[in-house]
C-alpha cells in the first residue's frame, strides 16, 4: 500500500492538530490530576510509538481516523477520570443505569476502532492474507484488552488505595474485567462485520450475480 508523503496528507494534519488541541484542553484542569497522569502513561507510550514508527510504517487514512477517534475518547475519559464523564452521567440518568458506563463505551471502542489499524499493521509487517488477516488482528486486539486488565490490576495494587479504586473504574462491579474484555471482543467483531459490508458495497455491480 502506498501512502502519500506526510506533507501531502492534509487529513492527517487536521487530525494531529485537533488531537493536540484537545489533549492540551483536557490536560489543563482534569478532575483528578494523579488519575489523569496514570490514564495517560500508556497514551504517551502509544503516541510516541506511532510517531517513531511513522517513517517505516505510515498508517493509511482510515487507520489514522479510527486511532484519532479512540485517542480522543480516551482523552475525554482521562480528563473526567472516567467515572465522572458527563455523557456517562447523562446515560445513567436517562436509561436508569447502575453506574457511569463511559469506560465500557471506550472498551467497546477499543475493539471497534483498533481492529483496522491492527489489521493494516499485520498485513504489512507480517504479510498475512485472507482469513488470517481478520483472525490475527482480532486476536491481537483481544489479547491487548486482556493485557490491559492485568496492567490495570497491577496498577491498582501499587497505587494508593483510594486512587486505585478511581483508576480501576470497576465501580463496584465484580465482573468488571470480564465485561470490559467481552465488549472489546464485541467491538472487534462489529468492526469485522462493517469492513466486510463495506467491501461488498464497494464491489462493482457487474461482479454481483444478478437475479433473472
Amino acid at each position, binding site marked *: 500500500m502506498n501512502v502519500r508523503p506526510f506533507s501531502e496528507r492534509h487529513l492527517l494534519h487536521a487530525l494531529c492538530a485537533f488531537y493536540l488541541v484537545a489533549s492540551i484542553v483536557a490536560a489543563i484542569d482534569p478532575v483528578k490530576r494523579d488519575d489523569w497522569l496514570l490514564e495517560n502513561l500508556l497514551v504517551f507510550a502509544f503516541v510516541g510509538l506511532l510517531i517513531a514508527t511513522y517513517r517505516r510504517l505510515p498508517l493509511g487514512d482510515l487507520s489514522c481516523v479510527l486511532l484519532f477517534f479512540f485517542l480522543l475518547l480516551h482523552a475525554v475519559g482521562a480528563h473526567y477520570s472516567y467515572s465522572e464523564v458527563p455523557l456517562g452521567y447523562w446515560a445513567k440518568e436517562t436509561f436508569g443505569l447502575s453506574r457511569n458506563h463511559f469506560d465500557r463505551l471506550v472498551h467497546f471502542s477499543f475493539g471497534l476502532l483498533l481492529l483496522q489499524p491492527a489489521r493494516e499493521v499485520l498485513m504489512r509487517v507480517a504479510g498475512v492474507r485472507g482469513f488470517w488477516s481478520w483472525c490475527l488482528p482480532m*486476536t491481537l486486539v483481544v*489479547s491487548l484488552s486482556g*493485557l490491559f486488565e492485568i496492567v490495570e*490490576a497491577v496498577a491498582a495494587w501499587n497505587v494508593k488505595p483510594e486512587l486505585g479504586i478511581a483508576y480501576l473504574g470497576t465501580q463496584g462491579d465484580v465482573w468488571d474485567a470480564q465485561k470490559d474484555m*467481552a465488549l472489546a471482543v464485541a467491538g472487534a467483531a462489529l468492526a469485522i462485520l462493517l469492513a466486510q459490508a463495506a467491501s461488498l458495497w464497494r464491489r462493482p455491480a457487474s461482479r454481483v450475480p444478478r437475479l433473472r
Partner: protein
Amino acid sequence: MKLVSARYPLTLLAAYALVWIALAIAPTDRWSWFLENLLILPFVAVLTLTWRRFAFSNVSYVLIAIYLCVHAIGAHYTYRQVPLGGWVRAAFELQRNPFDRIGHCAFGLLLVYPLREIVGRLAGVRGALVYWLPIAGVLALSSVFEVIEAVVADIVSPGAGPTWLGAQGDEWDAQMDMAAALGGACTAMLIACLIERMTARTPAVTPP
C-alpha cells in the same frame, strides 16, 4: 511435501484416552467434571479430524497431550481439591489450592508452541511477529476463557461473584489467571527462540 506418519499422534491419542477414561470413572464432582470437559472433547475432535489437512509437529502433539492430561487431573479433582495443589498449599502456606493457577500457566507454557506452528505455517506470518502473535493468541484465548467462566458462574450461582468455585473467593482471580498464562507463554516462546537460535548456529551437514 514431507510425508508425515500418523503413528506418533495416534499413540499419544491412545495414551491420553486411557488417562482420560481412568479419570472419568469416579470424579470428585460429576457435574463440575462435565463442565470442565465441555470444551475438551470438541478440541480433541477438531485436532483429530483436521490432522490430514494440518498436522502439527510431534513436539506440539506431546505438549498438547501433556496439557490435556494436566486438565484431566484438574477436572477429576474439581481443580481446587487436587492433592498436588493441596501439598503445594501446605508446603508454601498459601491461602488457596494453586492447582488451577498452575493449569493456567501450563495452558500458556504448553499451547503457545502449537499456536506458533499455526501462526507460522498456516497463517504464513513472517518476521519477529511469529514469536509475538502466539503469545497474543494465548492471552486472547485466556481472556475469552475468563469471559466464558464469568458467564457460566453467573448462570450456576447468580450473584455469588468471585466466591464461586473457580475463583475461590479471589477478586483478582481473572487477572491472575491471565497473567499466569501470559507468563507461561512468554517462557515457552523464549525457550523456543533460544533453541532455534542455537540449532541454527550449528553448521548444517554440507553436501560433498
